[in-house]
């Protein structure tokens, strides 16, 4: 029973020989680390390596191309367009889903009848798979689909559009589908955040005569700040890596003409479908680097503000602490 000296600052200060602690650490964390390295880190590093080669995926890559793949990517206008679409999706996701999710969460935090059923129904889109969402929405939004027919039925024929094919509209359709699919996740997070706000604050505010909306703006929103920022982070990363829905609804070839291509669909089309694994890997690296830079900037300038309890800019109330 000789406690290791100098470790009193830590949480796990327990008596026991040092080798035993090391063995425990190895046994407990080993499996996770092995699986994680094998199936995440090593493949990612291999992607970085393949990115320097012209390689069709057979045998070891030998045709070293240096930075040629990267030069091609960065000078390709279709890639520029895809990156642009990604950033439009990032911004619109935040602007559309954030306020909607907060409103829904507030609504569902109220005492109303059937609240648990409402809560469950709102999460339905989030739970069903991208394939199902894509298949269903593609059928609904097609030119002769249910949506246009419905518009015709209620006398809004002039609103009928080519929702999926018209480059001026397709992005809007995509945002509609994305919002529908993912707002449930944002609501789950916001709801969780709401429930961690102490009830006493509202009671005190009510005694001081604050109205419902004053309470929401002065108490709920500022205290929901950390949750909003975490959600925004997840949303941004997800939007930069968007693939499934675009690929399922628009297919590999239509996405770029419809103006909904993303970096990931560009990678799938020009890497995997074209059999250029070296080039595809290079696109993957660029996609990763862009995500990384965005994430680092976000963490540096937004997430660190959490200690100040201020709101992020995307809800338009920058720095407004009470």
């Amino acid at each position: 029973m000789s406690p290791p000296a100098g470790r009193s600052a830590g949480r796990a200060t327990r008596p026991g020989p040092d080798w035993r602690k090391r063995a425990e650490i190895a046994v407990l964390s080993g499996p996770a680390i092995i699986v994680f390295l094998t199936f995440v880190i090593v493949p990612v590093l291999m992607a970085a390596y393949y990115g320097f080669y012209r390689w069709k995926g057979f045998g070891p890559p030998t045709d070293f191309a240096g930075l040629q793949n990267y030069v091609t990517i960065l000078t390709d206008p279709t890639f520029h367009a895809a990156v642009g679409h990604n950033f439009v999706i990032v911004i619109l996701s935040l602007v559309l889903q954030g306020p909607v999710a907060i409103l829904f969460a507030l609504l569902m935090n109220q005492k109303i009848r059937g609240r648990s059923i409402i809560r469950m129904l709102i999460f339905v889109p989030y739970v069903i798979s991208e394939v199902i969402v894509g298949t269903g929405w593609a059928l609904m939004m097609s030119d002769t689909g249910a949506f246009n027919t419905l518009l015709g039925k209620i006398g809004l024929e002039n609103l009928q559009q080519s929702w999926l094919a018209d480059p001026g509209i397709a992005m809007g359709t995509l945002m509609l589908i994305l919002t529908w699919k993912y707002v449930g996740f944002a609501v789950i997070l916001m709801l969780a955040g709401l429930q961690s706000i102490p009830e006493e604050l509202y009671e005190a505010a009510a005694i001081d005569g604050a109205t419902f909306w004053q309470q929401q703006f002065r108490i709920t929103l500022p205290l929901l700040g950390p949750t909003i920022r975490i959600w925004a982070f997840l949303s941004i990363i997800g939007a930069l890596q968007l693939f499934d829905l675009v690929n399922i609804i628009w297919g590999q070839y239509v996405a770029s003409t419809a103006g909904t291509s993303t970096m990931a669909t560009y990678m799938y089309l020009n890497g995997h479908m074209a059999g250029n694994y070296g080039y595809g890997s290079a696109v993957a690296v660029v996609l990763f680097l862009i995500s990384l830079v965005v994430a680092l900037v976000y963490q540096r300038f937004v997430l660190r503000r959490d200690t100040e309890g201020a709101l992020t800019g995307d809800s338009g109330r920058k720095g407004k602490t009470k």
Partner: protein
Amino acid sequence: MSASATLPAGLPTATPGTYEVRSSRKFQWGSPLTYLIALVLIAACIGPVLYIVLGGFRTNSQITEDPSGLPAPWVFTNYTEVLSSESFWIAMTNSAISALGTTVGVVVLGVMASYVIARYQFAGKGVMYSLFAAGLMFPMTVAITPLYLMVRTLGLTNTLAGIILPQIAFALPTTIIILVPFLRAIPKELEEAASIDGASRLGFFWRMVIPLSLPGVITTGILAFIAAWNGYMLPLFILSDPNTFTLPLGVANFASQYSVDTAKVLAFTSLSMIPALIFFSLFEKRIVGGLTGAIKG
């Protein structure tokens, strides 16, 4: 004291069975408006799903004539044909194995690694956490081609293990990030008390840590389950034998195979979303509860 003063004014509290939403705001929203918004909300969320489900009860000619109509008459053959088809049940079984295997794997590996990160002091602890956290930055999209080659090298293509292991690996970052605060929040005094009572660190792990972190564990388990159940890209690369298809591949395959038979595709699609919906509705309260803990931490 303010709490006791306002308590009687509160509404009759939540019915037993609903979890402790602290919603006894004394302010009552204008009820009709609230319900109206709620109704619109539900319609928007459920409409497209209803379209898929009801479409399965129609014939193709009904769908062609009026895409937005209701079944008239109701046709059940689409559903019965899908339910009696072998490919549907094969995909269902494969999805169940894949999702359950992934969930168990993620929970077991995730809890163990999070425990080390949360409660042991050692050099390289920060590196370990950063390593896993960095995993959030690597979507499967980035790694998918080398990942396929890795799985092929291990001889796991066209096996469910070939998708379960990568799914575990890619679910670990979220799991660890959610679980570490849970495990950190367990008071040190508990551990000391257990130690005085003669429990080893591992004994403490099994007796105290697992039960106390259960909300977080369930949350991460459900997230991993849903991600595995809905996964599309990984099975698309790894599985080419229809006998190993999971439901999303089954749906996509069915949709291309029967592309003219819209009604049947819709029936197949709606049947394939049922399991995830049941699973989610059973555990939905736990998800919210678990994330609450994670965000607090």
